[in-house]
């Protein structure tokens, strides 16, 4: 009896220390780690990473007056290096007075329409991507930190449900590839863990910068599912889930991807 108690005690100690080791050693991998060395170097070199051309463009837009309010982003937000630091790490979020979350480009477009009294910038347009890249770049090196807003839970849960549901003619779920088979090959490509650490990304295949929404549409088309309409709430739900899953991982926008 005594020996049995001792055994259980040991087992509990082992379990506790094993859990502690798991917390210490983060096994999650950013897509960057799955790329070849040449692409990692391209991402890390600010004069070779083509995403930095868009960051530079974004910094010009930041200072440009627009709309009938005749205000620039800088007129209200000042130096982006301080005012936008950490912002990308905690989006999507629910704006003041609203009930549904918006992603970072949604938030930028809110400022366009409400604060600058200007037209919305079209999705995937160069100016919107450039502003998004410029804002996201201010959080480079910071850990992903989703806000503790309980109103987000329901949206995040919907995102998790989409992530786990099979869909498309190939009848696959995001989880089958990105949880169960991450690290294995799909044709010549390593399946990444799908952490949204580098967005917006410069994807060599696109020859331009693209948003997380565009990346998600690529995966949906890949499994022959109907992609959600441009700016559908499902993208924000998925992003909420992915950001929570990547909580604490370091932002590296603008990322480079093959």
């Amino acid at each position, binding site marked *: 009896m005594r020996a049995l108690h001792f055994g259980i005690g040991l087992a509990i100690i082992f379990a506790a220390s094993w859990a502690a080791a798991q917390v210490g050693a983060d096994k999650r991998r950013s897509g960057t780690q799955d790329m070849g060395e040449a692409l990692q170097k391209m991402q890390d070199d600010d*004069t*070779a990473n083509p995403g930095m*051309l868009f960051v530079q463009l974004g910094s010009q837009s930041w200072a440009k007056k627009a709309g009938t309010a005749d205000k620039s982003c800088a007129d209200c937000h000042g130096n982006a290096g301080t005012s936008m630091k950490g912002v990308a790490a905690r989006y999507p979020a629910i704006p003041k007075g609203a009930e549904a979350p918006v992603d970072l480009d949604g938030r930028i477009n809110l400022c366009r329409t409400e604060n600058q009294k200007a037209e919305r910038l079209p999705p995937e347009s160069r100016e919107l991507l450039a502003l998004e890249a410029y804002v996201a770049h201010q959080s480079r090196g910071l850990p992903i930190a989703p806000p503790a807003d309980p109103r987000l839970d329901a949206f995040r849960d919907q995102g998790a449900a989409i992530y786990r549901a099979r869909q498309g003619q190939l009848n696959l779920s995001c989880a089958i590839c990105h949880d169960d088979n991450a690290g294995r090959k799909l044709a010549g490509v390593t399946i990444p863990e799908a952490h949204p650490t580098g967005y917006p990304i410069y994807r060599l295949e696109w020859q331009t910068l693209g948003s997380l929404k565009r990346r998600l549409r690529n995966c949906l088309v890949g499994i022959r599912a109907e992609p959600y309409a441009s700016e559908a709430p499902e993208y924000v739900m998925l992003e909420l889930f992915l950001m929570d899953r990547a909580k604490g991982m370091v932002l590296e926008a603008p990322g480079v991807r093959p």
Partner: protein
Amino acid sequence: MANVLVNAPKTAKRGSVVEIKALIMHPMETGFRPGTMGKIIPRNIIERFTATWNGTEIFDMEMSPAIAANPFVSFFAVASESGTVGLRWTGDEGFVVEERVVIAVE
């Protein structure tokens, strides 16, 4: 609006070989792709990239439609005297962009 990123050393030892890297935003539209309405999108590429050191040409490159958007060029030069490296891109639709960097040779 010119959008260029140049990476060159600010100083160099006389006689040493320096690497100069330049990245420019450009669509490099091939002239072979149909647009969404089925019509061919007109070719719009950078045709030529040249570099000078204190006015003397040190590098000359012809570009073709096969080169991807936002071309990145890296080349080497011998640092023989302090001066200005001039970079110039020219192409379709009257595209001309010039950048310069100063390298101090000691």
